[in-house]
């Protein structure tokens, strides 16, 4: 384009030559393959992300054209008196799931990995809850959690002289009950991932530890877990990100009750968007949550990186 006049036709000819060569070389095919991919991702993945960022600065009710409101949605969402409670609940859920739920699949995997027979049976049994559609499982568990003395769990605990417990019906036991369900639903599939990772642990290390006289517990603590360290870090981050976006369980178990004890951030987003029709506030809160999770991931990455290399 910056060439002199008489060089232009030559350049154009060269360009056309490039185009046919490009098409014969498979460039056209590449574009044809890319079309469905780019369309689907543009419409349903990249587009909505960008639109979400834009929407969070707009006010729209789908009828009138959207208008820009600056940080209005964010200040509105942050001033919502329910946000603190929802954030605390979500954090509480994440914490409970981390403390009580997170070690379960690791223990399960280490135990199953020591089996020399029937390990596929154990694997399959452990994975079963992950196959059950959550909606059906939650309906079942809701029935199991019946607070009456004749409820399923209360009946069984009654045999040992315990209970009856109110489960989902009391403010302080509703969230732990949901965590118990979530652990049941998720532990098996996570354990399968740990089992796959355990197959790569270098067995020479165990032999070396045996020569040094390390017992079984010390081998687990000093060899198995450190070798799994990277998988554990990743699974922990994935779990934290997942638990901060918990929706289906509180939505179906309690609807956020009793007395907002299980109101989570995603329930709030859902209510903003689909109960109040305030899409601006909903996306603003989504963006805030995503930014928080992004920041958390970055911090987490640098902290665990230091531990991994240590």
């Amino acid at each position: 384009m910056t060439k002199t006049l008489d060089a232009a036709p030559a350049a154009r000819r060269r360009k056309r030559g490039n185009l046919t060569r490009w098409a014969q070389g498979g460039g056209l095919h590449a574009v044809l393959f890319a079309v469905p991919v780019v369309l689907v991702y543009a419409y349903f993945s990249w587009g909505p992300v960008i639109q979400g960022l834009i929407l969070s600065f707009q006010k729209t009710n789908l009828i009138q054209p959207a208008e820009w409101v600056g940080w209005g949605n964010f200040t509105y969402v942050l001033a919502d008196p329910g946000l603190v409670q929802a954030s605390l609940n979500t954090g509480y859920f994440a914490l409970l799931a981390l403390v009580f739920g997170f070690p379960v699949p690791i223990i399960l995997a280490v135990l199953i990995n020591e089996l020399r027979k029937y390990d596929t049976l154990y694997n399959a049994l452990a994975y079963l809850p992950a196959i059950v559609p959550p909606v059906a499982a939650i309906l079942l568990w809701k029935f199991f959690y019946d607070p009456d003395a004749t409820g399923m769990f209360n009946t069984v605990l009654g045999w040992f002289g315990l209970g009856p417990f109110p489960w989902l019906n009391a403010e302080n036991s509703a969230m732990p009950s949901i965590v118990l369900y979530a652990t049941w639903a998720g532990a098996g599939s996570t354990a399968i991932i740990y089992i796959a990772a355990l197959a790569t642990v270098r067995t020479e290390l165990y032999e070396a530890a045996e020569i040094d006289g390390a017992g079984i517990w010390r081998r687990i603590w000093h060899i198995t877990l450190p070798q799994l360290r990277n998988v554990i870090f990743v699974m922990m981050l994935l779990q934290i990100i997942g638990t901060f976006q918990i929706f289906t369980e509180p939505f179906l178990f309690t609807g956020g009750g009793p007395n907002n004890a299980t109101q989570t951030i995603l329930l709030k987003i859902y209510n903003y968007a689909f109960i109040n029709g305030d899409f601006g506030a909903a996306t603003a809160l989504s963006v805030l949550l995503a930014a928080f999770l992004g920041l958390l991931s970055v911090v987490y990455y640098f902290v665990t990186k230091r531990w991994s290399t240590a």
Partner: protein
Amino acid sequence: MSVVDKPLTSTADAAEGPKAPARRRAPRPDDAKERGVISASDRKRPAVKAWLRIVQTILLIVLIVSGLGPLLWAAKASISSSNAIVSDPMGIWFTPNEWGNLLLAWNGARIGQSLGNTVVLAAGSTLSTLIVSVAAAFLLSVLRPKWGPWLSGAIIATLFLPGVVSFVPLYLTILDMPLLNVSLQDTFWAVWLPAGASAFNVVVLKRFFDSIPREYMEAAKIDGAGPMRILTMVVLPLSRPILGVIVLLSIVGSWKEFLWPMLVLSNPDLQPVSVMLPRLATGNSPLSVQMAAVFLTIIIPVVLFAVFQKQFLRGVGTAGGVKG
């Protein structure tokens, strides 16, 4: 990432075609199953032996009670009377069977119809995932255009974004598709199409395609095969195991979907069973019919799992490797 190499190469070995070269970082003897923490000599010690037996028996009981228990209970509850279920949930094992519940749920509560919808949704979502992911993986692994890294980066970036950012705008996109100005609300496309954007499957497939020896494709090319024929005659037949895993996980995944179908399918005639069930529970249908509906919802994925357990478990293990 070495986690993923093992299951993948082993699935490649299972294929009919010639062996794909194992791409392991270091040659590792295949004794992974020969020992874990506890060595062979440990296992001969009576104390260790006894403890192992006790722990493994307890583990088995716990797994049976927690994994199989709820399913068996749901199966029996589905053919018990509401009275029996409410008054003594642990005693229903000994009450007479009422097979009529299942029929009531199937027809009266329209579980039959919504199960049909679930099947259609799962099939369509799986097909859409397969088409888009295979196209993307083939493009990035085999055709490798100059702009490939850009596309690959843009696809992988979506893996790191929490789903929550795009959730509400995705719903608005369905209501009014930009440029096309059509609404997909209350059509199956609203569930099928977004299912195609599965970055995770692209990564898994690309990894697998990368492990197929280039010589096969070169040979096909010399014989005059175009990209489409290379894909259908060489790449896809060799990838059958991984495609099977993706199909299985995608079917079960879409069977479990709840929030998204609930939002975009407001017409009860189109709703899948996962959306129907909670409504059934809040309605005034008897508990026995609810339990029958739960059982009918659970049974198909469970049977699918029972038949293809090996593929499921291997697939989930592989998935973990990619996440790692």
